């Protein structure tokens, strides 16, 4: 049975997974073929119940517009959501997402994409004055939680998510990713244990141009969720990955923290480490734990999160999930298994396993980086 939303009678989705990522810091674009091969190699890390990709730089012609990818269960849902969109957005273009009918993806929802921006005279202006980004976030929450049979799975600018139920290599063929180009790709192969056939449950998860692929189970989900609800996030999907996406959105976009600090909240250093820091840093890190203790992601995870200017890969604070990184020239590769990296790049310059809780942060070059403390503790071959 086809489902967009998590209507299973569970509090949340649990899954194991495989993941991959490629980024070129000069924003040189490549098509989806490489990453498809890499994630295909991790075939056994999934069970055919979810695969997906995020591509950055996919829509250069509409780079200034929000690209919404929406799945619909039926025409009625599509009509309802489009009514909302027309009321609130200037829609430059809408079209079905091009797909190739292949034997392995038989059953799929209606897949549509919209390039648009919020109207300046939209109705909600009457009672508050949200910035465009905030309004888009709110719209995503509204559609995902209040509109039956509709689910926004991508809402960023010049980027797109392509995902569904199936093995990732089949999903890649279904969406014809060989024809799409981007400077950054992430991919995911899913092994859910209790939510079969749920299109919305595939990764990546996105909000604006944040995208997350995630392997793991957040044992602190309960409090992370309640913490986010305090900031009016609605967690309609009941997945760990949704929690991570929203925490990042809160910390980086809303609270204005640096990515480095945000990663030190997700995988907070232990007090025994903090105690050894110099006084100003110790104070800062103690405050981070005091203020953001409820945002600590506890339990096993490996994640790759992408944003338009870069990519971050990291593990939980005691490294309970695999994560390998490598570089070759302007390319950085991340994967759950070293073999996947070799599939994309047979002779990398360096390959290393990032330490527990230590992020690999890669930024594209045209961005003037503020305060990068690039973790250079790389273990070379």
């Amino acid at each position, binding site marked *: 049975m086809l489902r967009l939303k998590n209507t299973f009678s569970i509090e949340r989705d649990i899954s194991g997974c495989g993941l991959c990522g490629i980024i070129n810091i000069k924003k040189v674009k490549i098509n989806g073929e490489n990453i498809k091969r890499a994630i295909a190699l991790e075939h056994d890390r999934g069970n055919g119940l979810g695969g997906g990709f995020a591509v950055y730089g996919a829509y250069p012609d509409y780079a200034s517009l929000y690209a919404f990818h929406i799945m619909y269960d039926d025409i009625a849902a599509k009509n309802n959501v489009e009514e909302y969109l027309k009321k609130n957005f200037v829609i430059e273009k809408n079209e079905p997402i091009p797909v190739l009918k292949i034997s392995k993806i038989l059953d799929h929802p209606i897949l549509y994409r919209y390039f648009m921006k919020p109207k300046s005279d939209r109705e909600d202006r009457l009672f508050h004055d949200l910035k465009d980004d905030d309004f888009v976030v709110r719209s995503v929450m509204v559609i995902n939680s209040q509109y039956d049979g509709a689910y926004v799975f991508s809402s960023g600018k010049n980027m797109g998510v392509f995902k569904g139920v199936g093995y990732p290599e089949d999903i890649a063929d279904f969406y014809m990713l060989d024809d799409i180009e981007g400077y950054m790709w992430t991919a995911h192969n899913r092994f859910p244990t209790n939510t079969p056939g749920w299109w919305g449950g595939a990764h990546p998860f996105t909000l604006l141009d944040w995208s997350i692929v995630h392997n793991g189970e957040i*044992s602190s989900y309960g409090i992370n969720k*309640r913490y986010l609800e305090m900031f009016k996030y609605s967690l309609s999907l009941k997945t760990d990955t949704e929690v991570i996406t929203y925490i990042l959105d809160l910390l980086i976009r809303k609270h204005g923290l640096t990515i480095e600090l945000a990663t030190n909240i997700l995988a907070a250093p*232990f007090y025994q480490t903090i105690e050894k820091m110099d006084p100003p*840093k110790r104070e800062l890190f103690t405050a981070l734990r005091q203020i953001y203790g409820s945002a600590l992601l506890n339990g096993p995870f490996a994640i790759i999160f992408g944003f338009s200017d870069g990519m971050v890969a990291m593990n939980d604070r005691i490294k309970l999930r695999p994560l390998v990184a490598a570089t070759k020239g302007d390319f950085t590769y991340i994967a759950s298994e070293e073999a996947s990296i070799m599939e994309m790049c047979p002779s990398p310059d360096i390959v290393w396993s990032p330490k527990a809780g230590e992020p690999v942060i890669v930024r594209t070059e045209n961005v003037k980086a503020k305060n990068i403390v690039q973790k250079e503790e790389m273990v070379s071959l």
Partner: protein
Amino acid sequence: MTKSSFSNIQPEFLALIDDTKCVRCKRCIQNCGWGTYSFGGDKIIADHYKCVACGRCYTYCPEDAISVVKNPTVMRENANWHDYHIKNIWKQSEISGIIISGMGTPLKYKKYFDHMLLDACQVTNPSIDPLREPMELRTFLGKKPSKLELDFTEDGEPILKNPMPPQIELQTPFIFAPMSYGSISLNAQKAMALAAKALGIVMNIGEGGLHDDLVPFGKHIIVQVASGRFGVHRDYLNSGIAVEIKIGQGAKPGIGGHLPGEKIGMDISRTRMIPLGTDAISPAPHHDIYSIEDLRQLIFAIKEATDYKKPVSVKVAAVHNIAAIVSGIVRAGADIVYIDGFTGGTGAAPAIVRDNTGIPIELALAQVDERLRQEGIRNEASLIAAGSIRSSADAVKAIALGADAVAIGTAALVVMGCHVCGKCHTGNCSWGITTQRSELVRRLDPEVYGERLYNLITAWSHEIMEVLGSMGVNSIESLRGSRERLRGVELTDSELQVLGIKHAGL
């Protein structure tokens, strides 16, 4: 009324002495604070009427010759007219007056902690071995900003823009509940002070002022300001790590306190700053707090007096509308809210209030935490839950419901020998805990019981670490408020809804 000494009430317990074992050492006579025993020429005689089953005599009998048993003489069983009611009627008809009792209610109410079960990891996420991996229990009590404000140094390094509001750092999420000098002995307070210092936690000295001997433990002491304002002066407010305004107590919400004049000896008179031999009366309300805006004034008066360097806590009893009350307290500027549940202990309270007023801590805590989150102010204050935390399991469940830390009072007294006989108000405690009689107080060695308190809290902390590990988290903040890790058994839909948890199996 000629036979005024005649009573319908039979002794509740029988203190039986095996004369063949007894060596007539008379240790029981010496140990009993109640005067149960006397020497009858060739053997020990017990006045059963005086026995409260505090357990002191048989614990210290070298020959194990004493057994205290429930009086087997039956009252005719009646599920409606229970002995509790019948005996109370007799008592009140004989002497009139309000029935006073010590400790929390002994009546059988539903204990919600006993209807909640914990989660653990299987397959999809690994559990963590606390003996091999770090496991963090460190807890900070105090106001937290909702977001971090950053500045950057010239090198672009981020630093704190504003210093954090004052916090109480606890190495493990326990504190010793407020018990005043007067209601308990100085030695009992000293035992807790020694343990708190060794454990890196804090004790609360209650409303009876700060004895000179405890001043050196200031970093581990919360000083209290209650309606009687005993011993309160500027140095007092600054001598601890935090100040607590006591509004109410779980065992007696809405009721003040009364320490009779005969208990006000030199030392207590000095510490409480009241004349020798006068009654120490804590009015039911603070007479300068008749509403929430008055509370705000007192909170800020204390903050002014302490130069904004000490967190201010407000202690309230869990009553029906507790969620809204606590929300108001937080908005009034409290940094910590201490919620004392229905079953909480006391040195003395009218039994009618103790046994009938208030609501259980589990329900109160769940509602308060949820309400503060709905209002987006949960970060503004830390929550301490109290009201008969009997085990580390209770503590874990309270924390999962949303408490930052738990306070233990009765459990700490049990460490010191308390058998929960409920006669604290008489001042005859054979264990030297709730008495000021020097011959009784002397027997409570602060170092011995300080060490046992240390042992207990250390053991409970290890147990919490085990549970955290089994849940696959390595820090207490990942359990705090994580109700997803709790499931209810034998609870109604309403109870589950109030607790914010799901029934087991779902």
